[in-house]
């Protein structure tokens, strides 16, 4: 017992200095640990207590991806669903000149071969100083862009990247470009013209977005993940038939060029439904390259440019007179060589002594005097009422931007001369679609039907609902009056009595009316000696299926409506009859007397 005690004491005595050193070390260690821990604590306080949100945001920025899910823009299709405007995934190719500078030559030559872009312009871009961003090519189909970039990377050239650049493609180039419009290069401005702009709300849809966390290029499965799905745009279907539109545009172009005219318009209407199958303008533009055409060609002249209709309007006047019971096609008119009207005289387009024409003859030979004399049976209000019934002086609201309503002067201001002029189509203005719809009324048994360009229903950007489902009809003249007028119009294409035999289609009964109107010059506000020539007609005359109206502005070769616009009518109508398989009715043509 004592021994053990001693040993213990000895041990204690011997280790006394080392024990205090250990204690010191321990304390020192504790102090160090405490200091380190308090540094940690302070840092923790700083991170979590003072400004936690900024750090959380920084962390989120590292890994969270915000991606806009672009809505797909709706297509614009023709009546059969053939796409006239469609959206395609595109990419832009962007270069960093600091990286491409050294290899600019081979890169540019490869790109110019593959993408059909200019070699020298590309070379300059790839070598540009003081920038790290240059567009090399825009709106490249994404498969093509990826292939090109991959090929270049394989060859060891760096500095080219791609970015999203949605493309709007117009597969038929200039076909119906005047109606469809285009989207400019700058997406932020949105569509710039035509239906693309008018129906943008329907076409564009609503972009969606998604947020997710990313690690090493892949989504982290249980990370944040919010997705708002995009709402794709709705397609817009037109009543246009692409092939008819194309054919009409080409034939019209040939005629306008042949006549050395300023411009031309042709409208094809389905008689029974009022649907417009073709609405052609020339000159027009290529929707894929709108900037290459002057601005004045980017719209639709068929609705935006009012003009005086001239003799085509005589058909409306005579049909109104027949409907009111004032005349019949056989009414005998004594036509003097000139007609005095207030302080002016009215001439016919050919010199003649006093002649004896029937009403049918006055229309067939397009006599101004005969028409004016017949129309004197009307009061100005009556004639005005009929013309408004035919839709003149009011917008057609078919959805085309910048439509002009045309103008019929207030009937109280007409006077004798005014009424005489208006009877044969001078002194009032119309647009081509209005006039086509008016002539279509005669073809459609006297019932006016609203023309339409949009199938179904769509809301334009001015809030107006347009389309075939909003079409309304109204009776303007009796069925009998329409039939008799149609028979009178058949004489116009008659090889013997008519003035437009080039518009006839052998085997078919064709009703038509030529027009040659004096044009009001822009500068002087008076008739400047230039003309508007036109031709309107429908076939088969005894059971009309189509109405075609052709207008050519300012022909410089001295041709009238029959010679300049008639062949366009004839070609387009022939095409329509063949395409839609309309056989001749086999009925005998009319035998109305022209003279008495």
């Amino acid at each position, binding site marked *: 017992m004592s021994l053990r005690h001693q040993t213990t004491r000895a041990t204690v005595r011997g280790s006394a200095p080392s024990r205090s050193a250990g204690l010191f070390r321990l304390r020192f260690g504790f102090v160090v640990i405490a200091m380190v821990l308090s540094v940690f604590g302070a840092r923790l306080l700083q991170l979590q207590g003072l400004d936690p949100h900024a750090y959380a945001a920084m962390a989120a920025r590292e890994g969270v991806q915000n991606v806009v899910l672009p809505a797909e823009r709706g297509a614009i299709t023709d009546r059969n669903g053939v796409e006239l405007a469609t959206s395609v995934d595109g990419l832009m190719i962007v270069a960093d000149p600091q990286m491409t500078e050294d290899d600019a030559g081979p890169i540019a030559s490869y790109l110019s071969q593959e993408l059909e872009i200019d070699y020298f312009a590309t070379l300059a871009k790839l070598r540009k100083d003081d920038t790290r961003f240059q567009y090399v090519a825009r709106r490249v189909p994404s498969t093509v862009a990826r292939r090109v970039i991959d090929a270049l990377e394989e060859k060891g050239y760096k500095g080219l990247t791609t970015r999203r650049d949605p493309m709007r493609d117009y597969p038929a180039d200039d076909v119906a470009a005047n109606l469809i419009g285009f989207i400019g290069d700058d997406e932020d401005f949105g569509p710039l013209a035509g239906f693309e702009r008018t129906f943008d709300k329907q076409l564009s849809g609503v972009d969606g977005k998604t947020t997710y966390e990313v690690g090493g290029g892949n989504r982290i499965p249980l990370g944040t993940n919010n997705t708002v799905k995009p709402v794709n745009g709705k397609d817009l279907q037109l009543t246009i038939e692409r092939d008819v539109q194309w054919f009409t545009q080409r034939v019209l172009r040939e005629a306008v060029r042949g006549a050395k005219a300023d411009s031309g318009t042709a409208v094809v209407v389905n008689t029974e439904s009022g649907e417009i199958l073709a609405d052609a303008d020339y000159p027009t533009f290529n929707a894929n390259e709108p900037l290459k055409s002057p601005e004045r060609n980017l719209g639709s002249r068929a609705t935006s440019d009012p003009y005086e209709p001239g003799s085509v309007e005589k058909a409306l006047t005579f049909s109104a007179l027949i409907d009111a019971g004032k005349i019949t096609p056989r009414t005998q008119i004594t036509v003097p060589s000139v007609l005095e009207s207030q302080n002016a005289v009215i001439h016919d387009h050919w010199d003649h002594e006093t002649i004896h024409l029937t009403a049918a003859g006055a229309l067939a030979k397009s006599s101004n005097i005969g028409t004016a004399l017949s129309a004197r049976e009307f009061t100005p209000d009556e004639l005005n009422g009929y013309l408004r019934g035919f839709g003149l002086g009011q917008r057609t609201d078919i959805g085309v931007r910048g439509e002009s309503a045309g103008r019929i002067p207030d009937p109280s201001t007409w006077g004798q001369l005014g009424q005489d002029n208006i009877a044969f189509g001078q002194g009032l203005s119309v647009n081509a679609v209005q006039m086509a719809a008016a002539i279509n009324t005669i073809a459609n048994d006297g019932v006016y039907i609203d023309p339409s360009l949009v199938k179904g229903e769509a809301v334009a950007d001015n809030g107006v609902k347009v389309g075939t489902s909003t079409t309304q009809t109204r009776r303007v003249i009796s069925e009998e009056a329409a039939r008799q007028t149609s028979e009178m119009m058949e004489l116009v294409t008659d090889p013997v009595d008519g003035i437009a035999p080039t518009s006839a289609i052998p085997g078919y009964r064709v009703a038509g009316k030529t027009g040659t109107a004096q044009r009001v010059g822009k500068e002087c506000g008076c008739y400047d000696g230039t003309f508007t020539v036109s031709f309107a007609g429908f076939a088969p005359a005894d059971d009309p299926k189509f109405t075609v109206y052709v207008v050519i502005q300012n022909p410089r070769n001295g041709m009238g409506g029959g010679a300049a616009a008639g062949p366009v009518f004839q070609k387009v109508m022939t095409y329509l009859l063949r395409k839609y398989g309309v*056989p001749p009715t086999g009925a005998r043509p009319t035998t109305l007397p022209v003279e008495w």
Partner: protein
Amino acid sequence: MSSPLPQSRVRVQRIAEAAVERARLRVVPRLSSRAPRVPFVTLVSLLLVAGVVGLLMFNTNMQQNSFAATELEQQANELTSREQTLQMELEKLRDPQRLAEKAQSMGMVPAVYPAFVRLSDGKVLGEPTVSTAENGFDARPPEARKPKALDPPPIEIKVPAKTKAQRRAEARQRTRSGSNGSTSTNQGDRSER
């Protein structure tokens, strides 16, 4: 209620003093449990390991799926754009413009007047007519009419017509230069230099 309690306690103590003495707490010998420990430990560790491994595999699998999803999405995108590009090419091929040009280059002309054969009685409706090259039309693609900025008008230089006196003087000049043409050309050369 509180009053009878102390009484009763006292009574119990008194009555069962011996029993209480007997029932006093005592240390009992420790019982060794008979249940074998090994299965339990194995079970728990198995559960633990299975949990950890399962979780790991689940995670890996999910990660794998995420890779696959990304890859498939990319593939879908690529296929979509490929489809669109092919569609575009198809539209180009179907374009009436292209067809018309091709037909015309093959020497085809559009038909003139439509005519039909009525199958019921074999009657021909319309007037069948042979189409000739004159029935064709200009089907060329639209030419780009450039805006003025891209297509400046040609520069015209108007040269005033020469008067009679000038013309006569020129003619005289010509006859003179004809006689000693070589010297005059030499002079011209020198002056150009």
